[in-house]
């Protein structure tokens, strides 16, 4: 990795990526296409239903001008009941509410056991996900009395495009060998599409799923893009504490960034225009 990108900028333990991954400076990439980013907290439900009054309480505490759309929504939720010996997993349908921007590219979703902040207009972690999530969590806990967090997750979907990528093999020079797989093998010229999923264990309760691969764009001319889908999460029952939640989520963000750097080559990361983020921005 280049010196500029990998300089570790640790201010506390939560700025250190999980799993012993190499940390990166606080940076944003100027030339990447973030398709979507989500921060999601799952609770042991404080109430079986989330009433409209509860949802309005949250909505009124947020910037209603920025999130003028208020709608009912249904979600299939995977619930984990954590036990000392493992966890049970069940599916259920939850009725909830969504508050969204006019273009629907930023949304806050509320369900009896789930709070999520999602955006396709990602700038950097604190302003796009971290601060909004902290505010929503405060209001949600006030309204529902939820007190036990079961899962914290962060997910980023990045689409890397280049007009020169007219064959999948283009990406062999820009993706690290571990993730390029067949693109750096003898069968590389035959590859039409590629998908790899890697599940990582980061510690006893934290894990990550990295999906990456090449797909053909829906254009007349052949054009192949590279998609990187990183889901970093912690499955652990903890009493809700807004500072602890904020710190654990920040730690997942630092981990996701470190994983992103493990997928792409140093040269490509440098091409994406990393620029430092000021401490308080």
């Amino acid at each position, binding site marked *: 990795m280049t010196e500029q990108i990998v300089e570790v900028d640790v201010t506390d333990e939560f700025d250190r990526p999980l799993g012993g991954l190499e940390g990166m400076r606080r940076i944003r990439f100027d030339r990447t296409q973030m398709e979507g980013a989500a921060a999601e907290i799952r609770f042991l439900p404080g109430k079986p239903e989330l009433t409209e009054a509860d949802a309005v309480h949250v909505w009124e505490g947020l910037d209603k001008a920025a999130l003028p759309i208020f709608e009912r929504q249904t979600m299939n939720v995977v619930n984990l009941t954590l036990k000392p010996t493992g966890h049970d997993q069940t*599916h259920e349908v939850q009725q909830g509410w969504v508050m969204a921007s006019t273009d629907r590219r930023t949304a806050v979703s509320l369900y009896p056991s789930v709070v999520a902040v999602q955006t396709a207009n990602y700038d950097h972690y604190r302003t796009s996900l971290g601060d909004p999530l902290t505010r929503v969590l405060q209001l949600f806990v006030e309204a529902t009395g939820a007190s036990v967090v079961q899962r914290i*997750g962060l997910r980023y*979907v990045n689409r890397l495009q280049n007009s020169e990528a007219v064959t999948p093999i283009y990406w062999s020079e820009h993706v690290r060998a571990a993730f390029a797989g067949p693109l750096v093998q003898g069968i590389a010229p035959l590859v039409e599409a590629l*998908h790899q999923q890697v599940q990582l264990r980061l510690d006893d309760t934290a894990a990550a799923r990295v999906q990456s691969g090449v797909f053909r764009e829906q254009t007349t001319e052949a054009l192949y893009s590279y*998609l990187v889908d990183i*889901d970093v999460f912690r499955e652990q029952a903890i009493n809700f504490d807004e500072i602890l939640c904020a710190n654990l989520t920040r730690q997942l963000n630092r981990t996701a960034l470190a994983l992103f750097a493990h997928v792409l080559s140093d040269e490509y990361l440098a091409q994406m225009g990393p620029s430092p983020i000021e401490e308080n921005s």
Partner: protein
Amino acid sequence: MSLAFAPSATALPLVDVPAWNDRVVRRSRTELSPFLMRPEIIGVLRRWDDVPPISEADLHEFPEDSVEAVAFIASKLGVTQDEVLNATGIKERTYFGWRSSGHRPRASSQGQLWPMVQVVGRLSNVHSHLQAWFQSSQAARDAFTAGDTNSLIMAEMDWALRNLTIDKPFVPADGDVTIGPLSGWSPLESEDLEETEIGHSVATDYGIK
């Protein structure tokens, strides 16, 4: 979503291919709203995940008791509770006894209920729209009404043979080979067949409706 370049899986009719997805250890995932991202990216992620959508109907999963079993068959086939009771030979009074008392029913009182659950469950894995097939097949409805699980399975196999495009079995030039279950079977002429594409279904629900 239909994409011209999307490769389709090579079909293996009449072969019980393992459901590999069931064997993958899956941990929970952070959901992303499909409304957030561009449709082409949603399409790619769905193909990558390659998991069937979770719908409310799926939440019934496999029934755990006799009352659930009746509801399971009714919902999968799109028939009434009474039709299920008649088909499986369960007396209405017996059924309501199960519901009101919660007692574990005797095996002898459950008629063809559980064999029918097995068959319907199996069929629902084969047909993406089981109700559409069932309601359009007189043979299937007759078999069900008669509580004849074997004939119901045969109706499905007959439909598959007539409708799914199957390559002729490969036979070496010397003809000295045993083909096994396909021996003696010859496909219908193509002009008699309705064109049907076989492929895996793409999830249509990405978590949030």
